[in-house]
């Protein structure tokens, strides 16, 4: 059986700022890490592999600049069997649509997969769109907000997913795209030094757009349907509101503040 886990390298913090001159995000000095949602997805895939009797090969797949190799190296240490980085200037500036095009073509080139895992969202863009768009491109079903995989049996996957109301147990035939939502308190596996060294020795490849085919204009900024007009820092936090009044009045003002800010 084949699993593909789609991962992204993201800045190690969400506390980024926008350069007011250029309108671009200041990335200098911000270390990069494997997106935590994707790390959860990979952990789920590795755990599932351990429970299955048949052989499973896990391929970690990422699109990104050359340094995104680091995130894949971590995946190999955690338990992926091989890794592929889709890296090409042509891929740069992709929105979720173009990203999904790129990933799905790579998955097709790999000969498809029985389960395609991805994180529910990335901590930088927070779009949660790439997984379902990959499913649409490949024409296979999707399960989003998946918190737990029970088992795979008879070419069906059974898992628990979060909905607006609570949780569902669902069954879906393979192949399928699973977007994983970390459960509270989930602790990802910490690869030890030996696993890190072994990971470095596992197969790792870098593919350009020539490897996955298609036209240049299918990819990256040119292949994107959404255009970012500008990025900017949200207006700075003003002075805090301090209320020194009767409790009833103060609490009502606080409730109004919650309402205005969309809290609760």
């Amino acid at each position, binding site marked *: 059986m084949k699993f593909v886990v789609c991962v992204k390298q993201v800045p190690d*913090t969400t*506390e980024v700022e926008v350069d007011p001159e250029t309108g671009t995000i200041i990335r200098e000095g911000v*270390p990069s*890490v494997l997106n935590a949602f994707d790390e959860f997805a990979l952990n789920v895939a590795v755990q599932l592999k351990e429970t299955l009797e048949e052989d499973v090969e896990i391929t970690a797949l990422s699109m990104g600049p050359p340094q995104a*190799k*680091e995130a894949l*190296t*971590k995946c190999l*240490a955690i338990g992926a069997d091989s890794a592929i980085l889709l890296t090409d200037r042509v891929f740069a500036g992709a929105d979720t649509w173009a990203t999904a095009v790129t990933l799905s073509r790579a998955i097709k080139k790999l000969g498809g997969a029985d389960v395609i895992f991805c994180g529910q969202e990335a901590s930088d863009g927070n779009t949660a769109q790439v997984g379902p768009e990959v499913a649409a491109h490949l024409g296979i079903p999707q399960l989003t907000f998946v918190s737990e995989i029970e088992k795979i049996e008879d070419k069906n996957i059974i898992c628990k997913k979060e909905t607006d109301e609570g949780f569902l147990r669902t069954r879906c035939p393979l192949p399928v795209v699973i977007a994983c939502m970390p459960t509270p308190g989930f*602790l990802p596996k*910490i*690869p*030890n*030094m*030996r696993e*890190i*060294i072994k*990971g*470095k020795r596992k197969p790792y490849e870098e593919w350009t757009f020539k490897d996955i085919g298609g036209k240049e204009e299918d990819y990256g900024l040119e292949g994107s349907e959404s255009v970012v007009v500008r990025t900017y820092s949200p207006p700075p936090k003003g002075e805090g509101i301090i209320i020194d009044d009767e409790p009833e009045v103060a609490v009502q003002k606080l409730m109004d503040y919650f309402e205005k800010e969309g809290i609760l």
Partner: protein
Amino acid sequence: MAKTNLWDERDLTEEQKLFKESILDWAERNLPLDRVIKMNREGHPFPPDIIKGLADLGVIMGTVPEERGGLGLNWKDQSLIAEVIGYVDPSIATAAGFMAVSTGWGFTIDRYANDVIREKYVKPAINGDKFIGIATTEPGGGSDVSNFKCTGEKDGDEWVLNGEKTFISGVEEAKKIGGGYWVNVRTGPKEPGAPHKNMTAFFVPIDSDGLTPAEPYDDAGRNAISTGGFIMEDVRVPEEHMLGEKGKGFYYTMEGFDNARILIGASAVGVTRRILEEAADYIKERETFGNPLAKYEGIQFEFVERYIEMEASNLMVKKVAAMQDVRYDEEGWLARTNKAQTYSPKEIAKWISMIKYKVPHLAKDTADDAMHWLGAAGYSSEYIFETAWRGVMSYCVGAEGGANIQKIVIGRETLGPDYVPYK
């Protein structure tokens, strides 16, 4: 305000970045600063779950070849690991026990031990099931290694060892989980002018008959790992417990010191980095007279000076680790032949002495400064600084060689052998 981060990841290889990430993630779960403070307050023995955790992480004796249970790491990687361990536990207890002692000396034991000792003690120590270390200091001599009194006499297939060893790291831990020590004894007469001759190294299990551990010391700092001693009265060990060749113990010991000191230098860089980060978080936030403390030059400039020294030390440690890698690539460096080498062992020893002298002092002084910046808060166990200050002091005053001995080595290598004050 984000937590201060003074690491520069761009210096690290891909693997090193992951080593660091894993150790930090592990420490966040298992060894956060409040636990470091607590375990040093509670004192030894070292928490068994942390020993097992370190072993499972694979940080102990990474330099041992893969075929013998290690990871075959080079010294650049192992010293980075030691740096991160020092960063995680600025009391330096963890680095003392499991970098300097178990790894620096353990690696050297592995080099000279035969397969019996390797299987019975080295591998289990790598796996965290046993503790191995070094017992070289005696009541009559610490830095003057050649002036020792313990003896070993051959009796049939066995060696009979007698004498007393002091200031040994980890005796209580070894007693608890099993293990043993590298013990130097004299196996021949003391030769005039060459007191280092006729020293032989043995591996002595802690549970040997005739070996009586002394009461552990009540040290000023790094109390999470014990310091103790033992008396040997007719302790009998088989021939296969001899490390390397008879009479070469002094040279092996010097090699062991070199390995342990590199890891102490590296750990102390990590301690300093952590102290600076923790202090920066405080001085950027805490306000007096309308400004954060960090805005006052009296504090900011001290901070900057320590930061410069730390990064200078970091570069020195990296240079030394690279030198050590050259050394272990060269076969036969111990034979002191005139073979063309990039560095002679003495040159390497000089650089190692430089970091052994410099970095623990820097860590201690930085902790001292940080306590001044924080005032009473810095002196309390609410913060890590006093724990770090007391802990790293052990590497200023002694442990793997006293400060002034390092200076003598450096003086010898810079001014020439004619100026060595003691022979």
